[in-house]
Structure formats: C-alpha cells, structure tokens
C-alpha cells in the first residue's frame, strides 16, 4: 500500500483521488453543459469568465468537456490495462498451467512480441480490430500484454522452484489452484506496481490513438479527441489544446506516482533506520601487558543494530598457535563476533568494546591504514559459503594475488607465483592450471581450500573460520579440517573456528567457547568437554547431538523451548526459560562468566536432566 506519509505517497494519493472523483462525478454534474447543443453565437471563443478554456467549433465549453471526458478516458485506459494484465498473466503463467513443453512455445512467442514497439503494435491492432473505442481497447490491451507476460513469466519461474509448490503438487493440488493460491499471492506486489504504471502508459497511448483519429469516434469524446480538435486552432486559442493536454499529464502522473509509491512502500518492508551516529569510543583502558603471546584480546565486546544487541559482552583471548572453537546456535552472536573482530560490521551496526586488540593493535577506533594492512596480511578469514566470497568474474589466481600486491607490494608476476605456491600449499590438485580458472569451475571443497590459500598469502597470525565446513560433505569436511590443522602446525597461526556443531569444534580445537544469546556461557578445554562441562546448555548440547554410539532405543535428549531470539533477550540468564535448574535468581540476574562458566548453579551436584527434561 502506498505510504501516505511520504510526500510522494501523499501527492500520488491526492492526484489519484481527484482524477477518480472527476471521472465519477463530472458526467452527471456537467454532462448537459458540455454536450449542450451548438451555441452558434459563441463559436471558437477564447478564455472568458463564462468559458474558462473557451469554446469549440460548435460553441461548447471546452473546460467542462475536458472534465466530462475524464470518465471515458480513464475507463478506457483501465479497461485496456485490465485486458493487458489478464492476458499477460495467462501467457506468463502458461508454463505452469499447460506444462513445460507448450509453455516453452508460449514463452518464445511472448519474447518475440516483446521485441515489437508497443505503440506500433497498437497501431496495427487498431487497423485489424477496426477504428473505434473497442478496437483501441483491444489494441492497447494486447500491446501491454507481452511485457506483462514476460514479467509474470520471470516471477512465476522464481516461485515455481520453491519447495512449497512441490509440496502442493505432491499433495494433489491442481495447477490452476496452485497458480491462484500459491503463486499469485507471492508475486502479487511487483505485478500490482507494474499494472499501475502500465495504466498510466495506456492512458497516454489512448490519448495518442484518439488524437490520430484511431481511437474514440464522434460524437463520443475523450481527452485525445479534444486535444486533436484543439490543436487545429492552437495559435488562436491555445487553451483549447493545453487543457486536455494538461488533463492527460495530470492523470498519467497520478497513476505513475501511485505505482511508484506502491513500489517504494513494498520496498520498505524493513523499517528505515534512523541515522546512527558512531558513539565516541570509551576512554582507552591501560592494556594488560600480560604477554606478547596474545594474538587476539577481546573484552566486553558488544555488537548492536538499531533495536537489537545480538552480542552482549563477549570477552576472550586467543594465544599464539592456539585453536579455539566457538559453538552456538543461530542467534547466539557467534558470527557477528567474528565479523566484529575482522572489522566487517557495517552501518547501522555498531561495535563497542572495552578492549579489542589484534597483535597488540587497538582496533576499536576503526582500522587505520597501517592496521588495515596488518589485518590484510595477518588475519585470514574463511567463510561458510566460498562461492559468495569469491568474485565470480575473476580468475582464482588473480583474486589471491590482488591483496598481496596491495598489502605486500609484490609485482604482478611474483604475486601470481605466490598464489600458485599457496594453492599448492593447501593441496589443491594442479595449482598452475587451477589458478587460471574461475570460481565456478571449482567444487565446494576446492573453493574452501582456495579461500584458506588466500589467507595464507600473507603470514597469518590468526585464522578466523566461520562455519568453514557446514556447506561441505563429511568426507570433504574432514579434508578441510585436516588442512586447517596442518596450516596451523606449519605456520603457528592461531585458529578461531566457529561452528554450530560441537563435535566438529571438538575435533580440531583445544578450547571451546560456548555462546548463547550473545554471551559466552562456558569456556572449557576440549578434552574435558564430555566430562567436565558445567553449564546446563553445554551439557544439553552434547547430549542432544546423536553420534555413532547413541543408544537407538531411547529418545534423544532434547532442549525444550526455542533458541534465543536476539531481539527479545530475557532479564537474567538467557538460558533460564529452557533450563531445568533455573530458579528465581536465574530469572532475576544474569550470571557472570566466572571460572569458565556463567551459571549460578555451576556447582550443582544434581545429575543432568533425563530425556525430554
């Protein structure tokens, strides 16, 4: 729906209401006046108090004729649009309705029709269908249809691939019903927008046809005809042509602006963020010089977006060569933590921290040029989906070489050689050939290797891997994990491995940070994970994941409730609503991370809850 509050929406609404009201009210009010029989005393008069826009060749008042003509003009335009939209819908949905084979023929025909200029099509149709209002409606309607069919076809194709369409087909729902119930509601918005804009266009086209004498015939009249009549005496009575012309412009504007406003309204389904000013960073704390061994030090890290704070005070340190895992469900803030460290949080997101140091450099004030370089060469980032993290139009070798040229000042040749060398280091088969290939020629596992290779172009001190194996098959997952392990051993880089899968993290890391609702709830050594985990959430996670030794005759342990919602974090311990041990204290106060666990009942001696607990 148009947003009336915006100036655009307001103007559009006022104009549209005015045009429609005129179309409805003008004929009964002034129909007599405008059609009044020839008044031979006042032929072709200029503007006067009695006749604001003068009179025509039969002495009729032009201003009122323009008002009365609104109904026919708008009606014909809407009829033509309706016809065009309906035809377009049917043609565009043909592949869904009549099956792929016939549908392909229809689509091909539509594509050819689209190539024809619309007005030319309308002109030839006007000849075929005969001169007159009906002919013009058909002509303009069918001229609109191809473009609309093309749009519908494209939209239908995107929706038709969705699983819910497949599910409906399996459930025996008919094709027409699928179109009406599942497809149209989901593609309705762009169609409505385009139909409104098309209505504006057909109004203009109609005026054009009538002006040429191919549209409405006497004695009926629309704006186009009035325009044509007025134009004959343009030099003597300019208003006779300008007033109907102005009417066409106004009505066209009303329809087009409405379309525009609707489009913007739909585009604005997410609330507009008010400009967020970067908060002044807090006074720098004296950084603890505990050791030069610390690669990454994070204290009190907050990441917030307007209205939500998905990361609420995360503190941890990573030492040289250490492998730390970060485990959590969706909404736990684990990926945002990684992005904040890599300085990749974009506006309107905000990063706040008491301490955020990478290799001794304070990153809180946004990286300086030198720090950017440090990040570029010493921090390697590996993302979940390597398809989207490579530029699809550039060869892999060049993409690896580019940062090395920028940060390390290598020549093109040497940077490329290093890229090939690094690809070999990540055990990519035939690295020389592969470096000349594009990302789409790589399999998922190979792309992930190349991504790790990219991190190795510099001398990484930290590898930040965010769900690096989630999109991969288990056999490939093992390869990538082994590779990460290998790289860590050879380069002494530290590794932060983020995953939803506690078993994956347990395989590679020495220490696991368990995150829940934007906080670290437990920091535990991997070796003690199964024996000494103390937080109820960690214990539940371990029990909930089936492994190859799970007792098949018993139901799996489950964690009741749903994962934490960053937009709605409860007071007190965020896990309390799902926790079997929760009491009033838990619901009142959020436990701090002390001794590696954030739980008021970490020292309980009660056995963990049974299945279904």
């Amino acid at each position, binding site marked *: 729906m148009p947003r009336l509050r915006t100036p655009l929406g307001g103007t559009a609404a006022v104009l549209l209401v005015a045009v429609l009201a005129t179309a409805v009210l003008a004929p009964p009010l002034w129909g007599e006046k405008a059609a009044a029989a020839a008044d031979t005393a006042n032929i072709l008069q200029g503007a006067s108090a009695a006749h604001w826009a003068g009179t025509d060749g039969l002495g009729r008042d032009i201003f009122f004729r323009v008002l009365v003509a609104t109904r026919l003009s708008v009606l014909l335009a809407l009829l033509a649009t309706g016809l065009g939209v309906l035809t377009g819908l049917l043609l565009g949905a043909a592949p869904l309705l009549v099956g792929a084979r016939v549908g392909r023929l229809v689509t091909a025909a539509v594509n050819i029709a689209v190539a024809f200029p619309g007005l030319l099509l309308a002109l030839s149709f006007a000849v075929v269908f005969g001169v007159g209002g009906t002919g013009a409606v058909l002509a303009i309607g069918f001229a609109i249809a191809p473009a609309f069919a093309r749009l519908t076809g494209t939209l239908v194709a995107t929706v038709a691939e*969705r699983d*819910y369409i*497949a599910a409906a087909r399996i459930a025996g729902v008919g094709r027409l019903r699928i179109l009406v119930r599942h497809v149209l509601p989901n593609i309705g918005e762009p169609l409505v927008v385009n139909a409104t804009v098309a209505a504006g266009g057909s109004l203009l086209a109609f005026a054009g046809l009538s002006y040429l004498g191919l549209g409405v015939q006497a004695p009926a009249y629309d704006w186009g005809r009035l325009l044509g009549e007025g134009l004959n005496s343009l030099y003597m009575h300019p208003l006779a042509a300008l007033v109907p012309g102005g009417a066409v412009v106004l009505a066209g504007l009303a329809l087009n602006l409405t379309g525009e406003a609707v489009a913007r309204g739909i585009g604005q389904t997410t609330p507009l963020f008010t400009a967020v000013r970067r908060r002044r960073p807090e006074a720098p704390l004296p950084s603890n010089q505990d050791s030069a061994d610390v690669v990454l030090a994070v204290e009190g890290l907050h990441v917030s977006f307007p209205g939500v704070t998905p990361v609420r005070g995360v503190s941890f340190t990573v030492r040289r060569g250490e492998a730390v895992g970060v485990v959590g469900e969706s909404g736990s803030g684990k990926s945002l933590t990684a992005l904040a460290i890599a300085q990749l949080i974009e506006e309107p997101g905000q990063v706040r921290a008491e301490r955020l140091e990478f290799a001794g450099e304070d990153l809180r004030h946004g990286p300086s040029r030198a720090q950017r370089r440090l990040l570029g060469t010493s921090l390697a980032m590996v993302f979940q989906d390597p398809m989207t993290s490579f530029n699809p139009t550039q060869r892999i070798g060049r993409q690896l070489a580019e940062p090395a040229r920028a940060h390390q000042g290598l020549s093109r040749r040497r940077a490329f050689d290093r890229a090939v060398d690094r690809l070999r280091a990540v*055990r*990519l088969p035939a690295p020389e050939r592969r470096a000349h290939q594009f990302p789409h020629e790589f399999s998922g596992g190979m792309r992930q290797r190349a991504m790790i290779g990219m991190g190795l172009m510099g001398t990484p001190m930290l590898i930040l891997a965010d769900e690096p194996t989630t999109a991969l*098959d288990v056999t490939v997952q093992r390869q990538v994990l082994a590779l990460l392990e290998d790289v860590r051993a050879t380069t002494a880089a530290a590794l932060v491995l983020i995953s939803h899968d506690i078993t994956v993290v347990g*395989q590679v890391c020495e220490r696991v940070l368990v995150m829940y609702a934007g906080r670290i709830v437990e920091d535990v050594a991997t070796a003690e994970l199964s024996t000494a985990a103390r937080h109820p959430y960690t214990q539940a996670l371990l029990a909930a994941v089936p492994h190859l030794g799970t007792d098949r005759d018993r139901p799996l342990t489950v964690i009741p409730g*749903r994962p934490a919602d960053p937009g709605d974090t409860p007071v007190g311990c965020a896990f309390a609503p799902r926790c079997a041990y929760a009491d009033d204290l838990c619901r009142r106060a959020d436990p701090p991370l002390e001794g590696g666990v954030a739980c008021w009942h970490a020292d309980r001696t009660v056995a963990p809850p049974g299945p279904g607990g």
Partner: protein
Amino acid sequence: MSPLNELRFRDVSVRFGGRRRGVTAVDRVDLTVPAGAVVGLVGESGSGKSTLARAAVGLAPLAGGAVLLDGRPLPRTPGRHGVQMVFQDPYSSLDPRMTVGASIAEAAPRGGNTTAEVARLLDLVELAPERAAQYPAQLSGGQRQRVALARALAARPDVIIADEITSALDVSIQGTVLNLVRDLQRRLSLSMLFISHNLAVVRYVSDLLAVMYLGRIVECGPVDDVLGDPQHPYTRQLLASAPRPGGIPTALTGAEATLDSAEPGDPHHPPPGCRFHPRCPVGPLVLPGRDDCRDTEPDGAQRRHQAACHYAAHASEQHNTRSTP
C-alpha cells in the same frame, strides 16, 4: 492404512538435460523400503539421493525403471497418492502467505471435518490446535518442520520420504524432530526413506542403511551390520570422516594424502568402471594389478550388503586396523 506398504525402486534411472551434455543423476537403482521399516540413505551432495526421493513422488521424471508401491507402479505425475515427502528447508516448503491450517487442509482429502482433521494432525506432531491460524513466519524452524510433517501426513500416506529434514535446524531442535519422526513412524507403522548426509542421524532413525555414490547404490544392509562391518571402501571412508568427539583429524601422508585431496566425483563425467576408483584407497591408484576397477563396473548382487566393489572382502581385511566405529 494398508498393512502392506512396501516402496520399491526397480532399476530406476533419472536423467536431466540433453543426450550429449545431460547428467544421469540416478543410475539403475534398485532399492526396497520394506513395509513399516525406515531405510536411511546417505551419500555426498551430487550422489543423487535427493533426486531419487523426488523421483518417488513424481517430481523428477524417470528415464527408466519403475517406482512400485506394493507392487503397483506409482503414477508418473505428482498427486495425492501413497507417497508423501517432507523437504529439507521448512522456511521454503511452507507458503508464507498461507496459514498453517490452510496448508495442512489443502493436502487432506476432500470432505469431512477439515478443522477437526487439522487439529488431529497438529496434535500428532505435538503442536497446539491454535497454531492453525498462524502463519509460518510466526513459527520457529522446528515448529515449521512439524507443520511440514503434518501436511505430509494429511494425505494419509503409506510411505514418507524425509529429505534432509533436520539439516536446516539448530542442533537443540534437531533432537525433538528426530524423536517425533521416530515416534510417528512406529505409531502409524509408516514406511520411510530417510535421507541425510549425517551418518549419526541416519543411524539413529533407520533400520536399514543404503549408501549412494554418483547415482548408484554401493552398499545396502541392516544399519548395524553396515556400520559395524562396512564392505565398500566408500562406506568406510564416510564412516571414518564422521566427526566424533575427541577424534582429532590426523594429517595423511603419501599416496593416501593425494587420494584424500581428490575431489568428489562429478556426476557430469562419471569415471568408467567402478565409479569410486579415482578415490579408492584399495583401488588401482594405490594397489597395482587392480585394473578391473578401471574398466569393469562391479555388481553387488552376490556380495555381502550388495557391496558394489570387486574387492569388497579384501577391502575389509586391509582396513580393520584403521577404522573401528
């Protein structure tokens, strides 16, 4: 519900694309889901497991063979017949513009008390009847997957095909859905084809296990037997790759490392002979004299677990030292 509801794939092939550049996603697959049993199907992406599932419900065209329900061929087009499917992603398998109740009612046979039927189905999947008026956006991932399950059950199927139904869910939610699926399957004595890439999940749910590689079933048998004594080297590799607590991956050396970094098979260009031979640790690339792997496709019919490997028995001897589940 009919007492017999055996789903059988007989020599099923599915091809996509033209004759020249097409892909045979499923190649002459024979697989039986016995009445009331759960068959787990594992394999890597591109192995054709989802295509096989879609073929069973008529969403993928058969290029050869037949899918039989109790011995009768299923119609080739999708519709409300005895096989229903639950999809991987509950966020895309429910129409966002339709209420939960409408989605479920649509799949139910016409006639009868729709409201009561929807309430009964929601109750089956442990959701409150008030949920019927809600839209999918108001539900969590786990709840959506329950709704998807209820919709599949609405058509009163004999066989359910579950295609990676827990892989889009959070780990803490996965357990509840798995428990529910197992419980429903037993209570309604459904036959089920349960597809997943996660061996541990499949093991937990299934009675039988089938392993697929590049469009072929390479091993099939009772789940404990297959996992306890895998015959095919690919099954063994899958088992060795499954993450287990504390099992830190070891760096591989020599010939095994080259093999290990070998890329997964490409369904567009399946290798001749045994499809697994370019990646096989007991194949011609490692052991000399095993040339038959390169030019003869192994037939599993006479072997234990129908393992499609020329050296299935030898393979297990060689590997007993390396991997114990």
